[in-house]
């Protein structure tokens, strides 16, 4: 009766089959996630452009922006789309400059917007900037983003002038992980 056991054991091992499996395929692993997120937002009411009855023409702020310092992110990033939308409901025209600065505060790249004074029914100013290849490298070397808002001459504002200058923006990040 040991034969039965023998036959059973043997048959399990001899008659069992397996399709060819190739575990090295893990090396082909490649994922290409596309991640969207906010980039920057501000909303400047008209009265902020007037201090004690005197118009302020230039506003400036720089922000640390060091996500590219992360080497993994830096290496995996293949394309970035930056989208900006500016809605101006103030009766003055503006120029908005977005500067990408390196660690020494040198400008690597500038995006500028001409924002006309408010008129009824006007569309927001929108722009998508695509960063790939050499242009993407400029972005990758950025450590700061600076925003400069310049008010152009026009009808004088008072501290009770209506409206605001609003900027919203987002980033679409294309990664290749392998």
């Amino acid at each position, binding site marked *: *009766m*040991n034969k*039965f*056991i023998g036959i*059973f*054991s043997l048959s*399990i091992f001899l*008659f*069992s*089959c*397996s*399709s*060819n*499996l*190739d*575990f090295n*395929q*893990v090396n*082909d*692993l*490649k*994922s*290409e*996630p*596309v*991640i*969207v*997120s*906010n*980039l*920057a*937002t*501000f909303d*400047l009411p008209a009265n*902020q452009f007037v201090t004690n009855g005197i118009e302020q023409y230039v*506003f*400036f*702020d*720089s*922000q*640390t*922006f*060091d*996500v590219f310092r992360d080497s*993994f*992110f830096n290496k*995996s990033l293949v394309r970035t789309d930056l*989208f900006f*939308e500016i809605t101006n409901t103030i009766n003055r025209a503006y120029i908005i400059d977005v500067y990408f600065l390196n660690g020494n505060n040198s400008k690597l790249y500038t995006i500028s917007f001409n924002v006309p004074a408010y008129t009824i029914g006007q569309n927001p100013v929108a722009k998508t900037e695509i960063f790939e290849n050499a242009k993407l490298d400029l972005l990758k070397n950025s450590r700061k*983003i600076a*925003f400069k*808002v310049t008010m152009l001459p026009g009808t004088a504002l008072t501290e009770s002038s209506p409206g605001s200058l609003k900027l*919203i*923006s*987002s980033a*679409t*990040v294309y*990664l290749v*992980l*392998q």
Partner: protein
Amino acid sequence: MRKAVLIIVLLVSISCFSQNKQILYNFTSVPQSLLTNPGSDVKYQWYFGVPLLSGISANVGSSGFSAYDLFADNGVDFNTKLRNVVFSTSRKDKLAINEQIEFFNGGFKIGDWQSNAYISFGMYQEMDFLAYMPKDIAIFALDGNRDYLGKVFDLGDLNAKGELLSVFHVGYHKNISDKLIVGVRGKIYSSIFNISSTQNSGYFYTIQGANSIYDQIISSNITVNTSGFLNYTNNYSGNAKSDITKKMLLGGNLGLGFDVGLTYYPKKNVQFTASITDIGFIKHSKEVESYSYKGYYKYVGLTPDFIGGNSNNNLLQDFQDAIPLDTLHTKYTTWRPVKLNSSIQYSFGDGRGSTCNCTGNEMKYTNSVGAQLFAMSTPRMPFMALTAYYRRQIFDSLEMKATYTLDSFSAKNIGLGLSTTVGKVNFYILADNLLEYQDVSKANSLSFQLGLNIIFPNKNTPY
């Protein structure tokens, strides 16, 4: 990130689980069946398992996909196969691995020939791994969030545990009457390694925003507990082999547990059994390290402050402050997966030879049919399996049990067990999912057990 993807793939490709030992359960010619029910109707004068060979079992199960689905050498791009697996499975799909090796095992009858009380004892090493499909996290790693605006990614999908432990046990079973056998087994667990992350919750989502382009929120309550790894992570200078041996011999994180069970014969040819095993816990206090990500963060992006100027806010720092990585060294307790087994069996056919002078001899049946129920606790829904079986005494020395099992891994699981006792040597081999042996790479679960024992049979006479 790449590592994270690899780990996910690994989790996905290993996940198999079930500690259902449907063939061994109530297969009373094998003394190891006492480990599935301490109240099994096993009789012996004494027995011992051949060290390291008395009980070897391995069990792999994966619901949702097989090794073939992911690693087939069929010219299809691996990433396509991976996507198919990720998108065709659900967060309920799991991978489970269980492995046991008996180091020693033995037993003896207490008292004289009229006594019906038995002791059994032993030590085995066990490895358990269970992971659920981390579906939402895998989708995010593969596709990102651009095409999933409005989807709430569930961080609770991260659910995995693994353990390597040794178990010392002593059991006692006794025939209370002709009809009833009860048994109990006490266990001491010594955990060598443990990793568990089963109580996670949280979410993240991206939707169209009102005052910014998106509203993005992450709420995280993730904890990973580990024990037994700490000494090996930083500048380890000891001897890992002797360390692990020490931990196996009650030097690890200790725990206690017990099994209870019974066998009842309402009639001579009708048998009912039930057992609950591994009611127990392990207290992790040595080499404990836990990591947690707990917090809430609403990401609005950069917000220039033109009034103050040079606001210098740091998004990465903000995020890390909102959801910090905490490393703790607090004790924690894990519960062993509790297993419930129950069976009902009907026997027929006179197994006594025609030459036998049968008067006074106990009736011995050739055939039995029965049904078994198995349930086990898991971090989510209990795992359940239903088995129908047929047992036959083929010769005095050869017994067979054939099973058909339904569970979440397979609906066509046919298993076969054989146990032969020649002289005092008992050998058994049990294997299930026999249909899958045509192509094991496509199997969703496989289990396998074998062992060698020396059994001195029970004596019912004084000489």
